[in-house]
């Protein structure tokens, strides 16, 4: 069956709500409208306004109320309408959602999911395209998940809802309309497992979210140039799968991290650090990154210069010192 990623998320919510009546869905416009991206389409109709409901427009209140409901027997799933509109909830997320289990020595767990449509590439005007994953991934106590395939969208969301810990579930907006042949329900690899999406032997592309299809396309294109690129899809940023990433890089000896978020102090920076810590003696070249520039997310007409595309990935692969030539970009005095 051909399914879009958005529909797979919808099916995951529906199936979770059918199986467990403590699962609730709430947020802004998630009721009658079905969410601005229609991820909650039909849930209010099937489960009633008690199970899927609209709240006042207040993100901190939404997450804060979810904390209380999770403390008291429910499994709330809340939708933040867009990445940048989750910022009002950041204090709740950083100070309470992430810390409750730890500060109460395990007495109070918060089984809740915060769904965040994120990242760009959809021509959104400002404040609608942020890649905000680093804020959450940097906050101990949160799990951070970002599916790049239709099957993962279903399976990882089901797992997120069943998880005893709070999960920030990052949904790449551009991928909502991605299609795949999938039969639902489907169970894919567990949280904390990265997956090799394409095997290769010359270099590893580590990617997540919107960067996964870019990396796959780059790998397909590189093949015709005689380069065999392996593509690793992280799937969950927290917990992080060091093993799969390191095994791939030890095998290929070269690594490029691809991610849409600005590179400075980012998840991609963390991955590069971890790879060089673990794989230094297997590396033939420094770990390089292809990321968004360190600028506020640009307006739609400039998006194409910002987003890591196939060409930029391939150019970066070429800089992996294939002939033992140092990367001119980073030579002392090169700027």
């Amino acid at each position, binding site marked *: 069956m051909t399914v879009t990623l958005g529909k797979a998320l919808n099916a995951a919510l529906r199936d979770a709500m059918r199986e467990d009546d403590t699962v609730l869905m709430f947020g802004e416009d998630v009721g009658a409208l079905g969410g601005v991206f229609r991820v909650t389409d039909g849930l209010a109709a099937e489960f009633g306004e*008690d199970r899927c409901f609209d*709240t*006042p427009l*207040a993100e*901190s*209140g939404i*997450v*804060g*109320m*979810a*904390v*209380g*409901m*999770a*403390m*008291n*027997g*429910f499994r709330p799933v809340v939708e933040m309408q867009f990445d940048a509109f989750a910022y*009002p909830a950041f*204090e*709740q997320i950083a*100070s*309470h959602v992430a*810390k*409750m*289990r*730890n*500060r*109460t*020595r*395990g*007495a*109070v*767990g918060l089984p809740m999911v915060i769904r965040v449509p994120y990242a760009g590439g959809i021509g959104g005007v400002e404040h609608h395209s942020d890649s905000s994953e680093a804020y959450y991934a940097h906050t*101990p*106590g949160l*799990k951070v998940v970002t599916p790049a395939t239709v099957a993962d969208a279903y399976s990882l969301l089901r797992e997120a809802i069943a*998880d*005893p*810990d709070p999960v920030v579930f990052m949904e790449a907006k551009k991928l909502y309309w991605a299609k795949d042949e999938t039969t639902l329900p489907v169970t894919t690899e567990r949280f*904390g497992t990265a997956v090799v999406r394409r095997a290769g032997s010359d270099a590893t592309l580590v990617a997540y979210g919107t960067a996964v299809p870019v990396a796959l396309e780059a790998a397909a294109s590189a093949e015709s140039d005689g380069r065999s690129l392996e593509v690793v899809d992280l799937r969950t940023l*927290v*917990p*992080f799968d*060091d*093993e799969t990433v390191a095994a791939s890089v030890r095998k290929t000896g070269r690594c490029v991290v691809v991610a849409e978020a600005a590179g400075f102090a980012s998840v991609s920076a963390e991955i590069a650090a971890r790879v060089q810590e673990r794989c230094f003696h297997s590396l033939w070249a420094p770990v390089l990154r292809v990321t968004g520039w360190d600028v506020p997310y640009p307006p739609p007409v400039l998006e194409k210069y910002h987003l890591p595309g196939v060409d930029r990935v391939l150019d970066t692969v070429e800089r992996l010192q294939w002939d033992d030539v140092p990367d001119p970009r980073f030579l002392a005095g090169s700027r």
Partner: protein
Amino acid sequence: MTTQAEHRMPAATSAAAAPADAHLLPSAEPIRFLDDDGGPAPGDAHGRYERPSTELLRRAYDAMVLGRRFDAQATALTKQGRLAVYPSSRGQEAGEIGAVLALRETDWLFPTYRDTMALIGRGIDPVEALTLLRGSWHCGYDPMATRTAPQCTPLATHAPHAVGVAYAARRRGEDTVALVIVGDGGTSEGDFHEALNFAAVFHAPVVFLVQNNGYAISVPLSRQTAAPSLAHKGVGYGVRSERVDGNDPLAMLAVLTEAVESARAGGGPVLVEAHTYRVEPHTNADDDSRYRDHDEVEAWKRRDPIARLEAHLRSRDELTDDDVAAAREAGEAFASRVRERLSEEATGDPADLFAHVYAEPTPQLREQAGWLAEELAR
């Protein structure tokens, strides 16, 4: 559902009709039963409220005396280095104890860092209650077993949690109420407003107790708000609101009990503003001479809640010298046990660092716990 047309065409209102918000508005003056010396307050200052039972007032008296002695002991322990810091609630006993006596065991309390006295009033073990301020862990008691949330430091951020807990209980058909305590400064935070709004929209059984003690560290109430009162903040959200003489234990018990029972009965959330005063500095580490006059503190000390309750009960022969002595002795005994139990230096197990970050530690946390263990074994 309101249609577009209804939005554009407000229904005609008669000038003589009572404003639709009258039932939400607080009384013109704070509710009080007692004058500043514990005599009867003049006129109908207690409004529609009834005097709490003598039995309840006697329990309140004992708990307030014990609470104050505990509070003094905790401040003393900071001087001996046994507590990292202590924010005193001396002078606010009527609110601290009134709140917990208004609740059933099955109700939830959402306290702040200043409300350790309320934890003691709820019967939480004092060493567990002081864990945060002792610095040995963040929360020392079990919130699920005690129905008491961890003491909250990020101002007002626990208010939406109270709404969630109360709404969840209501959804299951339970008659649980949640009471959340917020300071006057905390009422300026966004979460206070979001919580009021959510509580009203979802008709959640929550009581918001604002302990208006005049200051947020050094900042006086006048810099916090230009509203006629903090209780008025409820009205804009459709939350029934009341203001009370926070140093009058009769008034606090009467209003809080009514608020809790009204919420329990399905009347929706209630906001109670207690007019009280922080007679101690913000914490033991604060120098309050930089921002307030000694005279102001002394004036408030003369409206002491325990003295007022004592005078009231004595005037009705409901409290004897022996009762007073017994309450004080119980306070002394409690304080000396606390002193003894905290006589040792607080310690912590480094392995606890990695416990309970997640239900199951991530591979990274397991690895890091191992590295720390190796470091410590050297």
